[in-house]
């Protein structure tokens, strides 16, 4: 009896050891590449950094400097503005695309592939092509509208330009996620509704929207996070010598600039920590707010 028990314990231990071994590559990667740098960033945000990885702890000096800099508040406003421009519109358009792709139209598979394509293309390539299209003098967009709009260099327009590219790039991915949510809705609801005489529009608002709301919630959280973290797109579209740069500088762009161009990694790190806190806050508010509109009952 006892022998058997010991054997079972040994076996369980051996299996859990194998379990750990199997997840080790991922966990080690996570620890070395994500967790450790995260705590290192917190440490750096309280330090005065010097070249070649040298630093000395200085308390909240960087945060004081950050909160008293006009540039930082401007970056916050720019980021919020970018979120307002991209998130509602992006999700609305993705939902429309998803609903349309969910109907029985000809060449549905081809359309799905086309909408997903921007996700597959490298963001740098996307930004490059858009930059040419937005060119004031020789771009196709100004040629088509027959009016010289400074898409990339006008401080009042530059964020709209970035938002257009961002929405375009994200629609496909969000639509595919929403589509998977839509396909889980049982057809019987629609049949029952149409028997009761509900129109298509009524069906959309009273069946589709509540039923897809859990997916919509996930998409909303992800889109908002990536909008707060926007960087690569702006970096590619806006050059350093662009007069509109102060109007396009997002929080992450400011981080890049402080850390890698100016070389002040301490200040850069405090911008990152602030952004992490901001994302945490926004996400917490969303989880609290979801009770009001997300429907988990099937």
């Amino acid at each position, binding site marked *: 009896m006892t022998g058997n028990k010991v054997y079972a314990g040994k076996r369980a231990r051996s299996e859990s050891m194998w379990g750990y071994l199997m997840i080790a590559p991922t966990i080690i990667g996570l620890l070395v590449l994500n967790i450790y740098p995260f705590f290192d960033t917190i440490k750096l945000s309280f330090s005065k950094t010097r*070249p*070649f990885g040298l630093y000395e702890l200085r308390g909240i000096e960087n945060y004081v400097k950050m909160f008293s800099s006009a540039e930082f508040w401007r970056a916050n406003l720019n980021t919020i503005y970018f979120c307002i421009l991209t998130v509602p519109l992006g999700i609305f358009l993705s939902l429309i695309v998803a609903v349309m792709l969910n109907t029985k139209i000809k060449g549905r598979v081809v359309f799905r592939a086309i909408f997903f394509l921007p996700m597959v293309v490298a963001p740098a390539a996307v930004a490059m092509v858009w930059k040419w299209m937005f060119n004031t003098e020789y771009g196709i967009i100004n040629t088509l509208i027959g009016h010289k709009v400074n898409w990339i260099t006008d401080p009042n327009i530059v964020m709209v330009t970035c938002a257009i590219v961002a929405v375009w790039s994200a629609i496909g991915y969000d639509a595919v996620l929403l589509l998977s949510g839509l396909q889980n809705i049982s057809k019987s609801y629609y049949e029952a509704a149409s028997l009761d005489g509900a129109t298509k529009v009524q069906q959309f608002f009273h069946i589709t929207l509540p039923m897809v709301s859990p997916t919509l919630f996930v998409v909303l959280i992800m889109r908002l996070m990536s909008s707060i973290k926007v960087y690569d797109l702006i970096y590619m579209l806006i050059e350093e010598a662009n007069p509109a740069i102060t109007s396009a500088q997002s929080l992450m762009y400011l981080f890049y600039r402080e850390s890698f161009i100016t070389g002040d990694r301490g200040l850069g790190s405090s911008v990152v920590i602030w952004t992490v806190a901001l994302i945490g806050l926004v996400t917490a508010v969303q989880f609290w707010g979801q009770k009001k509109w997300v429907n988990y009952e099937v």
Partner: protein
Amino acid sequence: MKKLKKFLIPAAIGSVCILAAGCSAGSSDGKTHLTFQIWDVAQRDGMQAICDAYTEKNPDVVIEVQVTSWTEYWTKLEAAAISNQMPDIFWMHTNEILKYADYGKIADLTDLYDEEDPEFFQKHYSEVSLKNIQGSDGRYYGVPKDKDTVGLVYNKEMFDAAGVSYPDETWTWDDLCEASQKIYDATGKYGYMAYGDDQLGYWNFVYQNGGYILAEDNITGGFDNPATLDAMRFYIDLQKNDWCPDQNYFAETSPGTAFFSGQGAMFFEGNWNVLSEMQNYPDMQGKWDVAVLPKCPNPASGDGRATISNGLCYATSPTGKNFEVVKDVLRFFGSEEGQRIQGESGAAIPAYQGLEQTWIDVFDQFDYRLNVECFVDMFEYSVQSVNNKYRSVWKPEVTENLLKIYSGQLSFEDGMAAIQDCIIRAAEDD
């Protein structure tokens, strides 16, 4: 489970072995293997030629030339410096040399030629070249590689169309503006394209007018000096002319792109780009040429002539394990022979004095011979590229303020005061 173990354990051991082998790969042939890191792919062949010349004489040394793009170069080099794994030899730029030298990450090479000739550096290299290899302590932290100047590139066809004679050494700022206006009137194309760049723009004008960007102490800015201010105002106001594109235009189209697509008649260009421009725009060959920079007609001081001259150097880590061999290689790189090979490859103008002709002769390969002598002629009155330890901090702020002046968000006076302030603040914050 057993079967899995049998498979997994050898696999794990195997992969560890491969990793370890990858790290320790190398000198099993008894030779000294050196790595040489550069950022310009256009100069790879030239650098390889110098290395080949050295290894031919020293068959027990192997040098591998590695190219990394400019943007990645500095991130990589700093990471390598932190982990003490720097390449054996690498290019160093004046933007960064003070940082690396002051933190002891590059070797002091002042005594490199002492056995041969203690005065070697002073005899064969110009004062500007030697300033470009100095750390804050005035010692030499590299072997000069090349030197450059900025010249005026112009489109001959547009000058012909407007009936204006080509730029020459008698040209002043007034001629530059006058010709631009005539070309604009005759062809509708832009004249001189005054891009808000420092080295390829306003720095040249400031020094021509007798002003300066950094004061004698190398910490305070020169943006309260009347000569600097006059030149800055002149340069910024160029944009108000119809014949000059504004900075919005340059944010999307660089002056070089505009020039070679036939949109503008003149711009300032560094000599290091001219060879590749000849090669990359074959249709434009014969339609453009280069001249010395126009001078200031009524300078506050001096003769109105100046051009910014920069230069790279070869550097090495003070803690490299092949330090003695590397020093021998560097001695060769800085010798007349090493510098001659560099010039003949067309890579850049050798820093070694008296070898300028080797670079000029490279342009004989084209049907239309550019007047590249003008770049060499300008060394006589060239000014060292502006630099101090805090440049990386103040440079982005200066650019930002300048753009605000250009776009009218800041008045000229306030903008200049802000620039002056951020330069000194960069030093004080340290």
